[in-house]
């Protein structure tokens, strides 16, 4: 698997968080699928020229979020999203973040139904990339 992670030093987002964020996004977009193996920590560290502990930290964050799981000796794999347990607190937190976006949209004068359309098309965008990828396979 090619490395798609792009590091931006000098950002206010720490590098471990950049790595974790970009892998989460790749999983959400379907670039990485259930069972796919993440690059070995040392390999990714060498390619990105960052500290291996920083990569390991990013993998730990992903693991704590339930997005990946590590099998000793064989590597870190993308988990099946169906198996991820989410509790009410997670869903509430998500709803609150959506509220922020909705408030901003309404403040910009975008009507509620247009906002709903925007949400739909953004989500469709995520799914579409996944389908394109499947067709290629």
């Amino acid at each position, binding site marked *: 698997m090619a490395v798609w992670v792009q590091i931006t030093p000098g950002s206010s987002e720490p590098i471990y968080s950049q790595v974790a964020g970009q892998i989460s996004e790749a999983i959400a977009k379907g670039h990485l699928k259930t069972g796919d193996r993440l690059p070995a920590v*040392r390999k990714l560290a*060498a390619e990105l020229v960052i*500290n*291996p502990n920083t990569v390991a930290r990013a993998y730990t964050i992903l693991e704590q979020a339930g997005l990946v799981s590590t099998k000793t000796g064989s590597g870190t794999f993308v988990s099946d999203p169906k198996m991820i347990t989410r509790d009410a607190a997670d869903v509430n937190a998500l709803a609150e973040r959506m509220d922020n976006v909705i408030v901003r949209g309404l403040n910009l004068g975008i009507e509620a139904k247009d906002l709903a359309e925007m949400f739909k098309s953004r989500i469709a965008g995520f799914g579409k990339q996944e389908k394109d990828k499947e067709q290629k396979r």
Partner: protein
Amino acid sequence: MSEIVLETEGLTKYYGRTLAVDHLDLKVPKGCICGFLGRNAAGKTTAIKMMLGFLEPTVGSGAIFGCSSQNLTPAVRQRIGYVTEGHKLFGWMSIGRIGKFQRAFFPGQWDDKFFADMIEYFGLSKKQKVKSLSIGQRAQVSLALALAPNPELLIMDDPTQGLDAAIRRQFLEGMIQLIMRQGRTVLFSSHILGDVERVADRIAVIDKGVLRASCSLEQFQKAVKKVRASFIGEMPADIDIEGLLHCRRSEKELELVLVGTDEEKIQRWANISKPQKYEIVSMNLEDQFIEYTAPVNHKDLFEWE
């Protein structure tokens, strides 16, 4: 904390009446890349020279691999790689000659092939005289000399000063490659915070000779925060918030630099002080370093696991 490879206790240096390094208590654990940060003349080079026994401390001591800095034995020195500030090498030697010269200090562990490969990779020839090299090329030779003995501890004093981005990247790659080998440790000073952020997992901050922080990079990044609060009416005269490092006032705005203050405490302060609005300003490592070493009201951030 894992095994400590480098340790100083009360390490102090006066140059005449000028205090260069002030009771430095530094510990560098095995297996990390530690960025040694400080503004110009903060005491980094003096501290490094004392750690390596090249300069006698006025008071205090240092030890590497448990061996006193003042009496480092050849056997211990052999385990340490050192890159001097400015890459000072003998100008009259050829690259091949300087390689053989260096090899003599590292019997049984010097890797001839590695050295030759690196020199070739850099597009240099063993026949070239050091004095004919550019600063960048001399830095490359110096990097090859430091890595060829495969040192357990690599100490580099501002190795990328004045180098272009490509050669700087080679130094970063060199550090990453070395740290991948089991049990290797790197301590390097630098002013390029973007480089430090990439490769370091630990930092030590020295300011006017005093060690102000020694912790993981992550901990530092999480700890140093800036809050901007604006007021309509009167601003509070006293700022009562834990971890306050600096407070700057303008007409209607307060800017607080905080260390180790969590968002809950910031919220609680806001509830009492009632700013019209406030925000936590995101900072990158460079902003954090500049704020942290800005004078006034020192607050220290220490953590010995």
